[in-house]
């Protein structure tokens, strides 16, 4: 048995049964990262000494009976999370030398429990991308086929789980950035309801859409992580002060009688036949488990991508105004004056896609265009939310594909930004509606690439999608397949 290919839940059992120590398992993952990361580039920073020190402290806590659920368990986080004393780049040149002076709340909660930070994960720059090719560093490669992308923007978070480099990771999801890479890498990824997890300390992209969530090897592992990170945070006024359910307890309840909605707008011509077949077979699995399948309609689905690229870019252009070369980050040399310093620092520090989105968002918000673009998009967002409310009157959970195709090849979409944007058509509406969604493995293409199933829940009803996801895992073997890396 290797420690590095165990799930978080199993590692926790081994740790508490005294069969291993936090230090031993931390070392196993660090060694695995060292041996494999040149093939997939999932990590931007590896925290070896800090991790081993934290692991030894965790072993002390366990020995003295002071353990919490995540004490001693290794985890890696997307480089969008501020992590005190650790380099935090957001995969951008402009933050290449930035050392975070504080911890993001979601990560702080894991750290407080004694979770062990293995390192910081590669991503699309400022979380803008669907392939992880927009990193300022080396692109992440898919562990199932290193000629393919892992998805994005949390590409490192998904690839490190698939590659057995970490048992669990944190990512962020603004338009699909947890679920789409989870699908392409054959792991489980959960985007909680907007407001369920604090956004404090994650580097902001589009503040009305961004949400923190876990990626791991099983639904039960995601439940364990969500339990640790969910909850109100006074430092994020959009986090919601609601009771936190027992997510692990929700897993084992029955799904017989559950109403599962299939939105007809998600089973369209552009859907890859292999993906369609796998998702339809997944629906049949649910029927055989006693769930009831119902057809539902989300009539404004076609407009979601257009709506998203106005709302998200407008918010991004405002959020990214803070990178000015004054207080942190990279500053252009030999400036004539202040404006020259701003404009050249930003031009040198940001990559192509980030510039494209800043420009689009600035345009959409500029005088004379605000009503036509940004306000219009916010109104369409209302229609998309209403679609979901209506669908959830007929169904407890919605079942859809995560992405229209399996992972594509590196370079395949880099010259066509619109084609790249359309790889998120099935995930974007969930962010606009503000509700929760999860991706889990439901099959493979003939060429051996994973296919993801998306389960969408009512706002704050993570327990139901976790329960449905866990039931699917118990009935299938897809999540047990591993790439050979």
């Amino acid at each position, binding site marked *: 048995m290797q420690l590095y290919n165990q799930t978080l839940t199993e590692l926790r059992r081994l740790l508490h049964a005294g069969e291993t120590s936090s230090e031993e398992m931390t070392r196993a993952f660090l060694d695995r990262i060292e041996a494999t990361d040149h093939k997939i580039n999932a990590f931007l920073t590896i925290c070896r000494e800090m991790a081993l020190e934290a692991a030894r402290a965790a072993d002390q806590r366990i020995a003295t009976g002071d353990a919490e659920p995540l004490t001693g368990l290794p985890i890696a986080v997307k480089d969008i999370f501020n992590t005190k004393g650790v380099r935090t780049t957001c995969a951008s040149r402009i933050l290449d030398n930035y050392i975070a002076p504080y911890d993001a709340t979601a990560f702080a909660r894991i750290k407080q429990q004694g979770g062990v930070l293995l390192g910081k994960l590669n991503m699309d720059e400022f979380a803008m991308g669907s392939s992880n090719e927009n990193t300022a560093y080396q692109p992440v490669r898919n562990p199932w086929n290193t000629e393919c992308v892992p998805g994005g923007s949390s590409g490192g978070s998904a690839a490190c789980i698939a590659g057995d480099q970490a048992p669990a990771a944190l990512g962020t999801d603004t338009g699909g950035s947890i679920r789409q890479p989870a699908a392409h890498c054959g792991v489980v990824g959960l985007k909680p309801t907007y407001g369920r997890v604090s956004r404090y300390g994650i580097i902001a992209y589009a503040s009305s859409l961004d949400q923190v969530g876990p990626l791991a090897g099983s639904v039960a592992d995601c439940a364990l992580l969500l339990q640790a990170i969910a909850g109100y945070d*006074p430092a994020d006024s959009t986090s919601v002060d609601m009771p936190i359910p027992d997510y692990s307890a929700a897993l084992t309840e029955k799904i017989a009688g559950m109403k599962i909605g299939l939105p007809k707008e998600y089973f369209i011509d552009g859907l890859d036949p292999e993906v369609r077949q796998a998702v339809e077979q997944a629906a049949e699995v649910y029927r055989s488990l006693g769930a009831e399948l119902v057809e539902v309609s989300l009539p404004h689905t076609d407009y979601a991508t257009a*709506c998203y*690229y*106005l709302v998200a870019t407008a918010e991004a252009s405002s959020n990214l105004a803070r990178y000015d070369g004054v*207080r942190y*980050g990279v500053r252009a040399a030999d400036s004539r004056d202040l404006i020259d310093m701003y404009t050249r620092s930003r*031009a040198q520090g940001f990559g192509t896609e980030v510039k494209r989105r800043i*420009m689009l968002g*600035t345009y959409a918000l500029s005088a004379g265009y605000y009503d036509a673009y940004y306000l219009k998009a916010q109104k*369409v967002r209302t229609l998309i939310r209403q679609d979901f409310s209506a669908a959830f009157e007929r169904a407890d959970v919605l079942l859809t594909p995560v992405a229209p195709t399996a992972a594509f090849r590196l370079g395949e979409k880099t010259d066509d930004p619109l084609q790249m944007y359309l790889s998120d058509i099935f995930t974007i509406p969930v962010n606009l509606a503000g509700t929760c969604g999860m991706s889990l493995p439901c099959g493979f293409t003939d060429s051996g690439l994973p296919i993801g199933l998306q389960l969408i829940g009512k706002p704050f009803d993570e327990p139901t999608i976790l329960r449905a996801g866990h039931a699917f895992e118990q009935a299938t073997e897809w999540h047990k397949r591993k790439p050979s890396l």
Partner: protein
Amino acid sequence: MKISRAEVERVSRLARLALGEQEIDDLRRDMDQILGYVEQLNELDTVDIVPTAHAVPVENALRADLVRTGFSRDQALANAPVPDPTGFRVPRIIE
């Protein structure tokens, strides 16, 4: 084209981005394509629709006005691009 070169230049000044000639041409092409795509939103009648700014209703959050410990000066200055123990150095603003 939906967007002129002059307009791309105007937006780049608003966005504080010093763009090269080639970048301006590329961005004009990309923005034109994307703005063409988002035009489909005009197919929808939204006259009576209330815009959504946040999926969750958000009200002003107020906290007690208490003195709390923040960063020390050294911590706040630790990431400054030009090291200086007293503050953030910037190019001259007033001639």
